[in-house]
């Protein structure tokens, strides 16, 4: 499974757990519009750290939290192996 597919699967799993109805997950969808609150994002980042082995938002001090789903996925894709 690609990094992108893993991220989208994790988002859908958490949406199900948190009973959030997701709009279609397009790259330009703003994270705000996903309906996720900060707890849901914290869960997502923690699970992705375990699954992908990295947390791009803690590693880099200057990393701003992304605005869109596309930015979020790229933050993980751009982590040096």
């Amino acid at each position, binding site marked *: 499974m690609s990094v992108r597919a893993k991220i989208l699967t994790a988002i859908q799993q958490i949406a199900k*757990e*948190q009973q959030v109805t997701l709009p279609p997950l397009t790259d330009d969808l703003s994270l705000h519009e996903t309906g996720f609150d*900060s*707890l849901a*994002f*914290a*869960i997502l*980042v*923690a*699970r992705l750290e*375990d699954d992908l082995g990295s*947390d791009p*938002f*803690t590693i880099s001090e200057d990393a701003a*939290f992304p605005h869109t789903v596309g930015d979020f996925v790229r933050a993980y894709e751009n982590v040096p192996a």
Partner: protein
Amino acid sequence: MSPREIFALRDYLGPEKKGRTLSDPRHVVSLTDILSLSCLGGRARELSGRNVLLAISDQLRSGIAMIEIDGVARRMLLCPPDLNPAHLKALIEDAGIDAVVTDTPEAWTDCGIALVIAAQLPLVPAEVAPSERATEWLMLTSGTSGVPKIVGHTLEGLSGAIVAEGPSRGPAPVWATFYDIRRYGGLQIFLRAVIGGGSLVLSEPGEALADHVARLNARGVTHISGTPSHWRKLLMSGAAAQFDPRYVRLSGEIADQAVLDGLKAAFPDASVGHAYASTEAGVGFAVNDGLEGFPAGMIGQNRNGVEMKIVDGSLRIRSRRTAHAYIGRNAAPLTDADGFVDTGDMVELRGDRYHFVGRRGGIINIGGLKVHPEEIEAVINRHADVRMSRAKSRRSPITGGIVVADVILADGTDAAREKEIRDQIMTQCRAQLASHKVPAVIRFVPTLDVTPAGKLARTDA
């Protein structure tokens, strides 16, 4: 105090109660023999009026020495085996120690303490020292990372709950405990055996659980105590199947419904009780109805000399079984102005019972909200495939912290079912806990660390 009011441990070893023993894997000692035999080379009298440090590697000699020293020394400080040697100097100063009883006298030659007495086996014939005074028993608190606090007790206070219950009915009990007898929970069982007319089978560090249980069986153990973590380990080991005690006791940690039910299922013929006790507050009460928590009616009234109240969510206890003081130069007061000990154990009223939710000092901070890990663990432990769990906080770049849980599954759980079980635990947690308390991540692990005091290790708490 007039001499006739002094009672010491040796006064419970009357010759009419022969056949009682104190044993470990290597030795069996007759308790009655301690009236005429000594592990101190007959030198107990030299400890008269002294402040004695009891620093012996094994529990057997420690127990015999306690009997020999009680009623003779002014003070006796019990060192548990996991005591950090770096803390000894401060403890010796705070307790005014002027004598050491040890199985390694050579290690104490340069310590500046003039009187060092060797504790040895086999026992040698000796005349029993007379009981001269009510020796002060000093114990150390567990669970703190710095120098442990010294807590002062009397034998009368330590044995208050035992004397209140009276002698056990039926055949003399053979006690065992997973605790070390130099910890409060273990000392209670040692005293129960000595004062209540029974025997005691000691635990042995490093002994495989199956070997330990085989030894408990061989010695005919009928009554046994430990922490919920001790008991969960036994239930996980499979060794419980060969064991058939009459009385099973839990203390030292929160006994949740899952562990109580697990023990009732494993030992259908035994009575299962959980007791509330701490080094500072002494024995508060025992609950024998098989349910977690305790009836709300126990709060606010004096029951067998124990009064309890709840202030700011924490349980406070006043009784003659509490310790009388912290000992040392900078010792804080042990009780409030009314004589109540604040246990630091937080309780919550649900229906007509109070439930323990965790330690005040063990709260984890999740996005600014306070969470007791024990409360989350109790929910996770209710899943039939879960044996033990630990909830803790994990740093999060978004909320500051989130809850994660490590879970041990029951033996033989199919790894293919992990996802299903994880989903079920999540569903259970979401139904019963506020959303910030629901674990974000559940990991299945083979083991969880337990401290030498028998409690689930919470290094991050």
